[in-house]
């Protein structure tokens, strides 16, 4: 911080005598005056703001990132502020210079005008006549003060280079020694320095013009003291005006920017909100479009997009409905004749004992193949229902133990025919879960049938497990198992591990695919593990409460004796 900023603006310490040349400028002074003030103000404000800014920094950064409006407004304000600051500094500097320069010119010419009367006064006094000199000085002071009434108030001080004479003179206001030494070297000198003013106790900023007066009575120094209170006032006023106007301008620009960006940002925000609602499924949402500008174009394009989207989705929905309807109709149309055929076949089958052997066998084949045909039709319709998104869940809290028992019971006949034992293992605690018992039983039947198909005579283990949030059933066989990579394929439609193998159980090839869809409908998992020669495990995991997301299964997929 410079010394000048510590004291009064026109402080004694901070001032420098200017060149004797009366046309010299005081550029340095006024510039420093403006900059110092601003620097001090900036430092004060900076210190106070610093703490608040550091507190709000995170918040501000977030707003900066998220709000285009804020970013544009802030940038505009900063740029405008800088420009206004520069212009303000320049204006204040120019005006201060102008005011002070004209005052100086006037002051110097005033001083020159007083030179001749002064010489005339002192010439009439003999050298060494102290009383005469004092009288002449008093007289001169009165004369000059009177003649200066037109050009503004000023004070007069007369000094002598002769110390004896100087002491005898009335001690006037203090004159800076630098100024005096310049005057003694016979120069007219000008210096800014505090001067006394009538009716004011403190010294005011002022301008002192010193003139050497060589007379027969000795070498005198004549000082004119011009108080610059009025000029100082004017400059302050100009400064205040410039800064207030600047601040107002910046504020105005900020408001304008905010308003203008709002015009752009608001429609964009409306579009964004509408897009969100569209995404959430409300396809009837549209943007209100007003005018013909670029933003209106955005709104129109957006609406066109929404309309096209809505049409597409409606078309797909209609297709889906048609598909469901078709499925339902095919179902009915196919099933009615099939029922007749089935009953006829059954009738023939029941009387086959009275037929010739070929006819009897034909009746048997007819009945058996009708079973397959029926299963296949049922599975195809089921899977097409999933494809059409028409499958619905009828979930109730059910104890899975009962479901497992029923599935095992239903498959026991098949297993016994193949000489395979099914062993059920029920864990401790209840396994009540919100499931569609019909679908879960179907999944389990499919898994058990599949295991019977591949068990190669080894026993099948069905295990039920439960934890806090989920229930699980694993079906394990120790048959041929799966080759690497096949665990992901087994759920594909009509997939066969080994195409040369025949199906014992008359599965349709859709059972596992349907089971997977059934599991997904519950928000559950259906997973397979298998290793060549070690058998396979299928694990069904279901959440206890419908809608919950599974995180883990209560039972391991890979059997413990295989895990290494």
């Amino acid at each position, binding site marked *: 911080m410079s010394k000048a900023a510590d004291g009064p603006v026109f402080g004694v310490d901070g001032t420098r005598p200017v060149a004797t040349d009366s046309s010299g400028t005081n550029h340095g002074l006024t510039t420093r005056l403006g900059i110092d003030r601003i620097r001090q103000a900036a430092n004060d404000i900076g210190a106070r703001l610093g703490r608040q800014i550091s507190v709000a920094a995170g918040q501000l950064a977030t707003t900066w990132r998220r709000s285009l409006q804020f970013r544009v407004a802030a940038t505009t304000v900063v740029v405008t502020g800088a420009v206004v600051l520069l212009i303000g500094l320049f204006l204040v500097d120019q005006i201060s210079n102008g005011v002070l320069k004209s005052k100086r010119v006037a002051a110097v010419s005033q001083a020159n005008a007083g030179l001749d009367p002064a010489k005339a006064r002192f010439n009439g006094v003999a050298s060494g006549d102290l009383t005469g000199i004092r009288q002449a000085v008093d007289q001169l002071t009165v004369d000059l003060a009177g003649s200066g009434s037109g050009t503004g108030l000023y004070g007069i001080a007369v000094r002598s280079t002769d110390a004896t004479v100087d002491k005898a003179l009335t001690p006037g206001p203090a004159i800076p020694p630098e100024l005096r030494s310049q005057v003694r070297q016979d120069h007219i000198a000008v210096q800014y320095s505090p001067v006394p003013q009538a009716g004011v106790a403190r010294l005011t900023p002022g301008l002192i013009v010193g003139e050497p007066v060589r007379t027969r009575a000795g070498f005198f120094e004549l000082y004119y003291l011009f108080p610059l209170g009025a000029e100082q006032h004017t400059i302050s006023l100009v400064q205040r005006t410039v800064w207030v106007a600047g601040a107002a301008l910046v504020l105005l620009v900020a408001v304008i920017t905010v308003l203008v960006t709002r015009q752009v940002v608001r429609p964009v925000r409306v579009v964004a909100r509408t897009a969100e609602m569209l995404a959430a499924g409300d396809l009837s949402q549209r943007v209100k479009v007003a005018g013909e500008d670029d933003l209106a174009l955005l709104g129109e394009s957006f609406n066109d997009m929404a309309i096209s989207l809505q049409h597409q989705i409606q078309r797909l929905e209609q297709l889906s409905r048609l598909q469901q309807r078709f499925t*339902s109709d095919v*179902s*009915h149309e196919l*099933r*009615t*004749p*099939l*029922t*007749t*055929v*089935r*009953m*006829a076949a*059954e*009738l023939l089958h029941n009387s086959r004992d009275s037929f010739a052997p070929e006819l009897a066998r034909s009746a048997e084949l007819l009945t058996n193949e*009708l079973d397959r045909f*029926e299963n296949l039709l*049922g599975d195809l319709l089921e899977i097409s*229902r999933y494809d059409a998104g*028409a499958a*619905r869940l*009828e979930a*109730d*809290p*059910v*104890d899975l133990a*009962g479901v497992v028992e*029923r599935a095992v*019971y*239903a498959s026991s006949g098949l297993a016994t025919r193949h000489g395979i034992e099914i062993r059920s293992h029920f864990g401790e605690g*209840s396994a*009540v879960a919100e499931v569609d*018992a*019909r679908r879960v039983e179907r999944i389990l039947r499919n898994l058990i049938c599949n295991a019977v198909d591949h068990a190669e005579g080894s026993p099948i283990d069905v295990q039920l497990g439960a934890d806090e949030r989920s229930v699980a059933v694993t079906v394990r066989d120790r048959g041929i198992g799966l080759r690497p990579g096949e665990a992901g394929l087994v759920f594909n439609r009509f997939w066969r591990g080994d195409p040369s193998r025949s199906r014992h159980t008359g599965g349709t090839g859709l059972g596992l695919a349907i089971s997977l869809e059934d599991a997904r409908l519950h928000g559950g998992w259906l997973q397979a593990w298998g290793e060549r020669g070690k058998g396979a495990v299928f694990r069904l995991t279901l959440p206890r409460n419908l809608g919950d997301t599974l995180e883990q299964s209560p039972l391991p997929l890979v059997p413990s004796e295989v895990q290494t």
Partner: protein
Amino acid sequence: MKPRVLVVDDDSSLAEMLGIVLRSDGFEPAFVPDGSRALAAFREVKPDIVLLDLMLPGASGIDVCRAIRAESGTPIIMLTAKSDTVDVVLGLESGADDYVVKPFKPKELTARMRARLRRYDEAGGETLTIGPADSPVSIDVPAHQVVRDAKQVSLTPLEFDLLVALARKPRQVFTREVLLEQVWGYRHAADTRLVNVHVQRLRSKVERDPERPEVVLTVRGVGYKAGPP
């Protein structure tokens, strides 16, 4: 005397085949191919049991079902090509006692028909009372009558059987499977939705507020039981 069966189905081949099967199984079938004439035929034939196709020309099977149920408790078995939950539940709610999905095996159909025709062997002059003390439901088993708040409640035979099964063992919780076996006479084959829908229908007739049942209570995760006597 052979039980009379009214077959309401528009498919003539199926009707003819059903006729052969039913006659050979000891039923006496009558046929009507059109939904709009079904009710008239029902009044004329006075069947012991009705086989009703859900998809009919004229009135739909659902409407026919409601019309018959409005004037009689005669057992109705729906023949449906749709096993979708919505269709089945809609049929059951409109008053059918049971349903058979096409294509069905003849034995399955006749077994279900016989199960519906079989009545409880009503031994002794049994009267049961269940429900809240301030408004009990009293069941006169031999007279086949249910009374609550001095008003007679009209139940179909199946609903009556369901209520009696629950009321005979008031503290016991019945699973849906056990009820299917005891009331419908099925083992391991049928759909528990039958029980759910019939419990709802029963509640709508005997409960003061079906949303807050006092007579037929749900035991979450297990099944149903009769309210305390």
